[in-house]
């Protein structure tokens, strides 16, 4: 029987990092995610698994420590909240350009600016469309429970190394701070330096053996033709990810005439909305995208023949709704309901908005 603990989402991230064999965590304190590094420091994994944990001088430095660690073929991660992620965006772009794997955790708080420490989903665009410069994507996973905070650390590392791409867990202050039961999975052993050299030595900076040229990890290529070729390769990778890695969850969708689309903590509230709607005889379903990139576009498109309308429900001014509209392409009406700045809606409030928008 696997061990079950009552933990905060942020604590689950830290425990998962150790148990999924992370080699290094580099971070900087910011509310509402500081428990991640605090838990790691308390656990002292350098004494057990050998994992490095370091408090950096800034988020800029954290992400560049990740860059260095990822160059080495190591499993490295950081966590932060919205303003900190903004600071990291240059580094994320570099890592995307240099095709490096890493795990990023954004426990979103309300913005813009210093904003509030209350939960929000205002960083959807930043995460999904690329907050930094240049044409790049990262894989974005949206957990809706403490268990998923834990599990997505493992999944995130797996996808990051499979595609050599930065991968982000896009959470929010609600999931980060709430306590739930979490089942600890079997531990994964850290790779030895020898294993890393064998597995990733063809690209990683592990020290150059006599039988190969030095590995160079860079995102620089001054010749336009070379840079275009790199971009084309990246785009091809993103298309492969879109083909293979879409993840989602459907609730009451089989006979649904109307659909709510919501991710993360919004989706948990919307589960309540669906329940109340069903009691009132409204055939409402919920689609929860688990991967925000790749977005479950084909899943929405397959459902279109049965649907009269869709409402995207988000803790922002309407960001993911743009991806819903792109998927729907005018086939059915797409509405939006959201709150901002750390305010949260209730299931009833969402249902009321839904009924008004669709004249039910």
């Amino acid at each position, binding site marked *: 029987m696997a061990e079950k603990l009552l933990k905060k989402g942020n604590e689950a991230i830290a425990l998962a990092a150790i148990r999924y064999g992370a080699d290094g965590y580099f971070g900087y304190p910011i509310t509402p995610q500081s428990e991640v590094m605090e838990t790691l420091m308390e656990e002292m994994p350098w004494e057990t698994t050998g994992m490095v944990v*370091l408090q950096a001088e800034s988020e800029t430095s954290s992400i*560049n420590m990740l860059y260095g660690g990822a160059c080495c073929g190591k499993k490295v991660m950081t966590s932060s909240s919205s303003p900190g992620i903004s600071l990291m965006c240059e580094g994320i772009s570099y890592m995307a350009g240099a095709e490096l794997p890493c795990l990023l955790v954004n426990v979103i708080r309300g913005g813009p600016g210093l904003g509030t420490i209350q939960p929000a989903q205002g960083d959807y665009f930043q995460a999904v469309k690329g907050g930094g410069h240049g044409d790049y994507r990262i894989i974005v996973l949206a957990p809706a429970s403490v268990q998923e905070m834990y599990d997505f650390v493992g999944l995130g590392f797996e996808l990051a190394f499979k595609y050599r791409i930065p991968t982000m867990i896009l959470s929010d202050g609600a999931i980060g701070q709430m306590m739930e039961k979490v089942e600890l999975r079997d531990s994964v052993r850290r790779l030895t330096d020898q294993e890393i050299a064998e597995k990733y030595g063809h690209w990683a900076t592990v020290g150059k053996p006599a039988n190969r*040229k030095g590995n160079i990890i860079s995102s620089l290529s001054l010749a336009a033709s070379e840079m275009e070729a790199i971009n084309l390769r990246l785009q091809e990778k993103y298309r492969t990810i879109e083909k293979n890695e879409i993840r989602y969850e459907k609730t009451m969708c089989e006979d649904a005439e109307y659909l709510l689309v919501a991710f993360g903590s919004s989706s948990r509230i919307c589960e309540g909305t669906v329940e109340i709607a069903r009691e009132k005889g409204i055939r409402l379903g919920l689609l929860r995208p688990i991967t925000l990139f790749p977005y479950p576009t084909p899943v929405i498109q397959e459902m279109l023949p049965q649907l009269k309308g869709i409402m995207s429900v988000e803790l922002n001014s309407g960001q993911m709704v743009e991806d819903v509209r792109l998927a729907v392409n005018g086939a059915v009406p797409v509405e939006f309901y959201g709150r901002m700045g750390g305010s949260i809606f209730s299931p009833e409030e969402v249902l009321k908005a839904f009924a008004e928008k669709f004249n039910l």
Partner: protein
Amino acid sequence: MDINEIIKPENLVYPKSKVLTDTVMHYCPGCSHGVVHKLLAEVIEEMDIQDRTIGISPVGCAVFAYNYLDIDWQQAAHGRAPALATATKRLYPDKYVFAYQGDGDLASIGTAEIIHACNRGENIVVIFINNAIYGMTGGQMAPTTLIGMKTSTTPYGRKAELNGYPLKITELVAQLEGTCYVTRQAVENPANVRKTKKAIRKAFENSAQKKGTSFIEIVAACNSNWKMPPVEANKWMEDNMFPFYPLGDIKDR
């Protein structure tokens, strides 16, 4: 005596280091970067650590350092080389990790990273090329630009009231507990080149002994952006840079 009598393999006294690649360096004629690259290659070869050395190149003229030394390289974002070096060294404590940075990279945009890496006493080597100007972007004022020095963003000369004062970051990092060896060198003549090589060797040895951060500033000439011929630029450096940036060890423990 016929020269061909002398030019024989058995008489070779100064060969090119095997750690250097055959790629022609993109640096301007007479640029100090080439000499420092060569010294790094020679030290790596002499210590026989080519398979255990990881270099971090900066943004600036030395961004392409990775083309010239045949070792594993990471190319950092502007100013962040010490952050990459920190993680690399902590994840591979038995490897040799050096950050190679210019004055804009290290002493302006990357001030936080270098101060904190030095303060943590990361067991890395920092090579800091100070030519008092931004080379790659075309000769703008650097944090280390001397008062009165003309650059493309101080066309009438650097004025303290407008631009602040030249930053002696090497003296600054020497104050930090984490640094074990802080020195300022130059490479414009054979004697200074030899001293710089000794300093680099010592820095790498410190790294192996986990004594803390070794920081080597190399006062350098940027003849193109100083708008002087190479030999004249070296003379100008001796006459103008050395009085403000005096050569020698600042800290050694």
